[in-house]
């Protein structure tokens, strides 16, 4: 086994010193060492989006990111996401956009980055922007509505 090496990760505005093997993914380290289990492992392959976190404000696959390559990055997980994410939470709640919730962390983070870049995103932009986050429960309609509601708030 490759030895563990010390690594300082800045997660949710707090610096954490962790010991991680070089091949450990960011997902493994967040979950197993920092007990930030909001990012989920749905495929470990980059497809489902359940592991999404923000690295320097952009959504990435934590399952495809080696933790040690994040040494100079600012990482935001669902546990620490604020601002637009809070507005999205409110909208997801109102729209009934959550069923089992396994996709929800990734959805909220991906949507928050989308709205940060395009505050008044259209339905089509939202559908495209969320297409890398699978949801097997909702049929997406209510999720898109929730994100669109926040976007409309920004239009006003």
């Amino acid at each position, binding site marked *: *086994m490759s030895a563990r090496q010390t690594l300082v990760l800045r997660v949710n505005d707090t610096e954490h010193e962790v010991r991680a093997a070089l091949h450990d993914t960011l997902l493994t380290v967040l*979950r197993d060492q920092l*007990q*930030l*289990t*909001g*990012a*989920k*492992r*749905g*495929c*470990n*392959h980059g*497809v*489902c989006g*359940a592991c999404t976190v923000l690295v320097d404000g952009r959504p990435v696959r934590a399952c495809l990111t080696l933790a040690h390559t994040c040494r100079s990055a600012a990482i935001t*997980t*669902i*546990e620490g996401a604020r601002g637009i994410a809070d507005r999205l*939470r409110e909208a*997801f*709640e*109102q729209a*009934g956009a*959550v*069923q*089992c*919730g*396994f*996709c*929800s*962390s990734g959805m*909220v983070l991906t949507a928050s980055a989308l709205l940060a870049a395009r505050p008044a995103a259209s*339905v089509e932009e*939202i*559908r*495209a922007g*969320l*297409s*890398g*986050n*699978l*949801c*097997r*429960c*909702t*049929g*997406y*309609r*209510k*999720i*898109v509505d929730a994100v669109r509601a926040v976007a409309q708030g920004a239009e006003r």
Partner: protein
Amino acid sequence: MSDQSLIGRSLPRVEIREKLTGRAQYIADLYRPGMLHGALVGSPHPHARIVSYDVRAARAAPGVRCVLTGEDFGDHRMGAFIKDEHAIAKGKVRYVGEPVVAIAAETEAQARAAALLVEVRYEELPAILAPEDALAPGAAIIHEELASYFKVFEAVCGGNVCSSTELAEGDLERGWRESDLVVEHEYRTAPQAHVSLEPCGALAEVDAAGRVTLWSANQSVFRVQASVCESLGLPMSRLRCLTPRVGAGFGNKMEAHIQPIVVKLALAAGRPVKLVLSREEDFEIVRARHPFKVRVKTGVKKDGTFVARDVEVLADGGAYADDSPGVLGYSLLMARGPYRIPHTRCRGTLVYTNKLRFGAFRGFGNPQVSFGTETQIDEIAARLGIDPVAIRRKNALGPDDRWFGGQQLGSNGLAECIEVAERESKWKDRAQLAAAPGKRRALGFACTAHISGLLGTGAIVRLLEDGSVVLNTGAVDIGQGSDTILTQICADALKIPLDRVSIASPDTDGSPYNWGTTASRVTYTTGRAVFAAAREVERQIKTHAAELLECAEADLELRPGGVVGIKGVPGKELPFLAISARAHWRKGGPIIGTNSWVFDQPTVDPKRAVAVGLPFPQIGVYSFGALCVDVEIDETTGQIEVRRAWTVADVGRAINRGSVEGQLEGAFAQGLGFALVEEMVWNGPRLANPTLMDYKVPTSREVPYELHSYIVESPDPDGPFGAKGVGEIGINVVAAAIANAVAAATGVRLRQLPMTPERVLRGMLAAGASG
């Protein structure tokens, strides 16, 4: 209904904040002190005798604490209908990937590394991969001891036939004689993977007395308890089953997956063991939707009146029976559809093959048969020159009609469902739909019905000292929202605010029995138990209040906010707090309302129908639905896009409208995958696409944003507030409606799923419908 009624509103999920802040805990998120991690070794062969194991290297590997093979397990078998399955392969393997050895080690990586060191010697046996081959004379037998297995019903089985079922009404020969037109075709559906976003997993811990606590991703803590105990030979009282949040279940988490193995590992290692499947393992070793071959023959009169129907199903059951006999029987019960067809016979054969077991999946066989029956209706309509909606309306079951088999319908909103779908989709103006250049476009229509019900259920409502309430049902909320709905029912029945009721997490030690979150049943069955248990609490409250207020119980009423008072006398009232305190400390004892019941209306009326090998004597009440889709086909590639959809369901009464819509929309999306892209492909004995890279499910791009759901309410006399189930109905006819639209747009009648660009394009080229 007062203004404050909690029924019918789109209240947010009671657990929503937890899920939106990342704090909801699913099985993978649980960690116990001293916990080990499990890994599995899967069989490389589809069918083989296990000759010997060599686990020495694995035992000696770093971090390994325990290695178990089939020899460490007793000869106990589990199964919902036919007890044919060991906890881990024993003596024989029957599909590629079947767990043969289980390992527990200090870390997941160590456990997985050790798994690679295990050597198992096999003696290969001929593999049976197609259902037709299973039936061939001289075929290798997959379960030699089938005859001796315990069966919970009178199974008609033998050889590789796991179960065969027949259900018939009327006189088929007469039916054909009376028909002016007879249409017959064969339809094929593909194996579909559940792909709940959360893979299956379990965590077991043994206490000092040897009693086991098991957390797992499941749809029923009670089925888990029964299956684990059956397959390990444990008394049920030695196992406590709990559930964390569940990352959805669509039938895949109803029966056991790896729970028995994880319990055995924990018992053997003497430490907690967690095992969460990788996505690949989840595809390869849990279960999936059966591929069906369905022959449908329908006879009709010139005016479109349905006269006769003959259906024959051949279902691939895979290596173990699991829920398959139920799925087969249910599919046959659904094969007449929500129509009057006086002469109907439906027969089916379920066979064992050397593939992953197939089992319960939302729709439970209904989507498979409906693909055949609902597309055939369109074919008939076209041949007779009748509008597809008109022919359905003409033959639709009315409120006084009975379901196939003879069960009386307590409620039936089918006519209204058809009307809503027709109106909202502007069906009558469909000729005016414009297709984009290079595209064909048309609407497609289909109708359906589904049951909700089945088996035992209970509820306990406890009034706490302060007048707040804890509700305990044992029903697992798998994401569909039952915690919220049951809380709404309880709070509404007691006229208290939602936040005064907490719902307990399912626990086989403390919860009343609940068969499971399946068969679209929780709202209907558990909701009813909750309502009755709340009524019992109300009765006890009134007994106390009558004594305290010196009046008759009949003169009392519950008032909003947790107050009981004398009707018509505003000031004369008592808060629940006062009543509960009295009950706890002075008189009567704590107030606990309980209810339990089992669905007991017979499915088959022997005076009307003949049934052989049907595994469920009582099934449930019927919900109805209609669906219209607006489909566009790319002439260049044959790719189908669903632009809009109108999905309508008669749910009796929507307890939570948002949740009902959520079920209809989610079911539609899953049906869309079944219709267009999803197919587990076996390359010889091996699954060729067990990853999300290769097995695709619809994304936010494929599911139409214009996915409109409509609720029809034809109250069921026995349902809580009239409610019936809605969990499955929305998936049943998505494929059929799309196929009907494709036929309308291109003239191509597809009889095989999924409707890939390839199948569509070939059809169009053959029909000369595309240049």
